[in-house]
């Protein structure tokens, strides 16, 4: 997966409070402005007939998107960042967009990857493994009853 898409995925799957907590620890505080949103809307969720067949519209889900631009330098080509996240949390989308913009600055790249994305990815992996162990605990072990002659 391309780096920005991977980051977008990890940050979208992470609860907002945890994202804020890790972000604040990095102490990256550039000036920025919102160029789009944060805007709350919907995405039409599609399924496939039989799981593998043609698409159909299942129903919608709430979705929030934001785009920000760093304003701490005069350059017209100040980085733009984008964020999309399920639900209706403008702060989550805005922070994702800010991280995306900051990650385009060479000086912050390593800090964002090692101090934010990597630990959040590890936290998600750990949670998912724990959930998979809970599911595994409800897996049925069958006993075959052997009838005597």
């Amino acid at each position, binding site marked *: *997966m*391309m780096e*920005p*898409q991977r980051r*977008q*995925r990890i940050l*979208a*799957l992470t609860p907002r409070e945890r994202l804020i907590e890790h972000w604040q620890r990095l102490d990256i505080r550039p000036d920025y402005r919102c160029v789009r949103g944060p*805007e*709350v*809307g*919907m*995405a*039409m*969720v*599609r*399924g*496939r*007939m*039989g*799981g*593998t*067949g*043609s*698409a*159909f*519209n*299942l*129903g*919608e*889900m*709430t*979705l929030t*998107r934001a785009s920000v631009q760093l304003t701490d330098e005069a350059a017209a080509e100040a980085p733009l960042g*984008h964020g*999309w*996240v*399920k*639900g*209706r949390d403008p702060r989550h989308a805005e922070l994702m967009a800010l991280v995306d913009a900051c990650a385009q600055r060479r000086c912050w790249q390593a800090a964002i990857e090692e101090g934010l994305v990597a630990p959040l990815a590890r936290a998600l992996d750990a949670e*998912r*493994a*724990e*959930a*998979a*162990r*809970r*599911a*595994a*605990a*409800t*897996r*049925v072990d*069958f006993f075959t009853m052997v009838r005597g002659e």
Partner: protein
Amino acid sequence: MYVAVKGGEQAIANAHRWLADRRRGERETPELGVAQVEQQLRLAVSRVMAEASLYDPELAALAIKQASGDMVEAVFLLRAYRTTLPRLAETLPLDTSAMRIERRISATYKDIPGGQVLGPTYDYTHRLLDFLQLANAEVEAPAAAEEPLADCPQVLELLDAEGVIEREEDDGAEPYDITRDPPDFPVDRATRLQMLARGDEGYLLALGYSTQRGYGRNHPFAGEIRLGTVEVEIAVDEHESPICIGEIEISECQMINQFGGSRETAPQFTRGYGLAFGHNERKTMAMALVDRALRAEELGETASGPAQQAEFVLAHADSVEAAGFVSHLKLPHYVDFQSELELLRRLRREHAQRAEAAGPKTRSDDSSVPVTGADTDACHTTPSDPVKEQQA
């Protein structure tokens, strides 16, 4: 003559105030929080999201609280909210084979790769009231195995490999969207599935049950039922490949049904499919049964049961539409009723006059004339177009 009637503002305001008081209940009891509904009434939240056709657990929980637990009202509230939001994207079709499994069972094979995973189910509970819950007893944390669950491939794919079940292949068609264009019967399977997905669970359950009892028999097996979370992806201009926006909880049911086949194709099992937001197992089973029943024509079967009549089934599946039309009977029909009353009085006068003229012994002649009231209330007796009145 149309007579505008105005009034009742104070009565309405006071009725709402009383309703709010009823919703709140005794003030000594702690108020129900939306987060409590979201976490502790999860199946209600799932049902409201599925039938409102909007995945947002917090808003569904709010709707349930606001509606005092009236599920049909809650669905209506969330469906109405939905219309206030812009559509930002269409997702890629969910990959349910990549689901993070919480529950996954098959009634067709005992031993399946990944195993039979019961998950958080009400099955095998004793259906005895648990009086400990009256006392809010402590609840244990769930058990965890040492190893995480192995991959759980789709059970029907195993049959698919052998060729004994019809294949589901993507024809690449853009699916019809009933939220953009109203359905125009006859409708294709994508449209049917969208309508069933938002259909009332009780209604679909009854129709699915009717197919099992013989009204459009198609002898189903629960090939696979799964519950878990699936990541959702959308395509955006800013990235070349799709991006993940989060994950949602989904229930899926794959029914295996009796054979189709023709001179050209060998007999094969056929399929019915159910998919719904949240933890909605019964809904997806009912949906899969009805989906299969509605494929009667496509599979060359005689449509003999009510569940196989697509227009009848689908046009009445939406609880928001159904509740709306039934509820409108509560609105003032004073003028309509007055005109029917006038008509009835005239018919009765004429009847009395005829009876008087004919003498006491020939009364039976009258029954040959059917008496129907003129219906000024547009068309609620015309099944072919029952929505006209709502639009008027």
